[in-house]
Structures are given as C-alpha cells and as structure tokens.
C-alpha cells in the first residue's frame, strides 16, 4: 500500500547498479542480433566451449553427488563418468580451435585486451582442473598419472603443497576451487565479449576507419 521509497543515488547499491547498466546496457547484454561477419563457422567455437562446459558442470555435479563407488560399479555411474570425460575432451578440442581463431584474427584489437587475457587465463586454469580430475578417478589410470605428475611437480618445487597422490586434496581442488575459478573467469570473459562486441575481421575494420575519415569534417583532405 505504501509508496516506493525515493531513490537514493548516493547508496552503494545504486552506484553499482548504475555502473553495471552503463557498462552493459540490456541490449548489449542480451542482443537479438549479431553483425553479418559473425556468420562464419570460426565464430561458433566459443559457444561450443560454453556448451561443453555446461555438460561438464552438470555431469560433474551428478558424479559429486553419487561418489566414486557409483561411477565405478554401476552402469549409469559409468555412463555419467564417460559423459564427463568426453565433455572435457570436447571442451579442450573446441577451446583450442577457438583460441587459434582468435589468435589469428588478433582478437585483442579495439580495446579487447581483457577479453583476450581472460580467455587465455581460462585455458591455463582449465589444464590443472582437468589434471586434478584425471588423478581423482580412483583407478589405475589415476594412479599412473599422479605418480608421473608428482615427479614433474616436485621438480619445480610445488609438490609440498600440491600433492597429486593425495586424493582428498586433489578432489577438493577438482570439484570446488578450480571449477569456481574456471566458471568465474568464463563469466567475466563472456560479459567482456558482450561489452566490447565480437571482434570484426581486419578488412572490415580498415574500411570502417576509412569511412570514418571520409565522413569527419576535413577527413578526406590529403588523401
């Protein structure tokens, strides 16, 4: 019944909201169209990486709920274990193709340095996320990988606090710490892509720059 309280522009929640809307207006956050140049297969691999990540998180959540005995000794558990493994294989496959595509189109152009950097860091953080998963399987494969990896990690001096033969520690890293880092970085990466837009091809950027020079007053002089 009572009227809504008057807006308080000085409050920190209002400031955060306004900064958020300024950085990412709704039409940028959830656009209903993309530039014409996005109609190419090379632009598909980012969203394929996201789709794989969703399958990884969902299948991993089910595996975490049920535990090692379930994924080893029941057919349904074995099935979800395989889904999780192959979604990871696919994730790395499409993420590498996405990375190659963005590298060769210099996707850091036009103020997109943070987009590139968050993407590269996601790749680097995804590697130990996968490694801790392989050593958490609780089978001979895990035993082999962990005993091989420990020599490498010991040689660089991190084995004392990151012990790949310690299942409890590796499982915690695999299902909590590293996934939080990957999902947070992927969220930041996608929001930055939405903010800056998909990087245009080289020739299109040059044409736009030439058009802007022609349109601006006196821009055509000296050409």
């Amino acid at each position, binding site marked *: 019944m009572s009227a809504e309280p008057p807006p308080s522009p000085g409050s920190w929640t209002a400031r955060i909201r306004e900064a958020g809307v300024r950085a990412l207006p709704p039409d940028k956050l959830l656009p209903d169209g993309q530039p*014409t140049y996005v*109609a*190419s*297969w*090379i632009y*598909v691999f980012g969203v394929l990486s996201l789709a794989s990540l969703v399958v990884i998180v969902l299948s991993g959540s089910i595996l975490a709920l049920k535990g090692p005995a379930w994924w080893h000794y029941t057919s349904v558990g074995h099935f979800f274990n395989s889904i999780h493994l192959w979604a990871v294989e696919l994730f790395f*496959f499409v993420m590498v*193709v996405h990375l*190659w*595509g963005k590298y060769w189109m210099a996707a850091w152009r036009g103020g997109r340095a943070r987009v590139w950097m968050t993407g590269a860091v996601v790749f680097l953080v995804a590697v130990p996320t996968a490694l801790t998963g392989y050593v958490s399987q609780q089978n001979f494969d895990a035993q082999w990988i962990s005993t091989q990896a420990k020599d490498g990690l010991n040689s660089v001096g991190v084995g004392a606090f990151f012990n790949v033969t310690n299942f409890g520690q590796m499982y915690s890293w695999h299902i909590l710490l590293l996934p939080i880092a990957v999902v947070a970085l992927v969220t930041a990466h996608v929001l930055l892509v939405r903010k800056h837009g998909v990087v245009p091809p080289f020739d299109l950027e040059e044409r736009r720059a030439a058009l802007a020079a022609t349109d601006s007053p006196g821009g055509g002089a000296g050409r």
Partner: protein
Amino acid sequence: MATSTIVAAVFNLNRPAHTVDWHFIHLSVANVIVIGLMLLVFVLAILLPFPGSRRRETAR
C-alpha cells in the same frame, strides 16, 4: 563386457603405446591424431560457407 572385448580386439592395449619422436618432441600417436583433427576442423571452419551467410550478404 562384449563391447570391451570388441574394442580390445581392435586396439591391442597390452603393449607400449606408439609414439612419434623428433628431437626432444615425444608425442603419443593418439595425441598426434587429436592435434591433426583440430587443425583439420580449424581449416574447415575457415573455408566452409556458413548456412545463410550468402543470403545475408545479398540482403545487405
């Protein structure tokens, strides 16, 4: 059980893995195949036309 028997008949796992060695590079054949597939998919993604892209070009 039957599936694993068939797979084991096709891929003999009771021997050391095949590897590709060149100077310090030491890769399993399985990894070389995956890297080759990634390169192939990358090239195809650049060369193959995207469905509807020609129509959009014409409409512009």
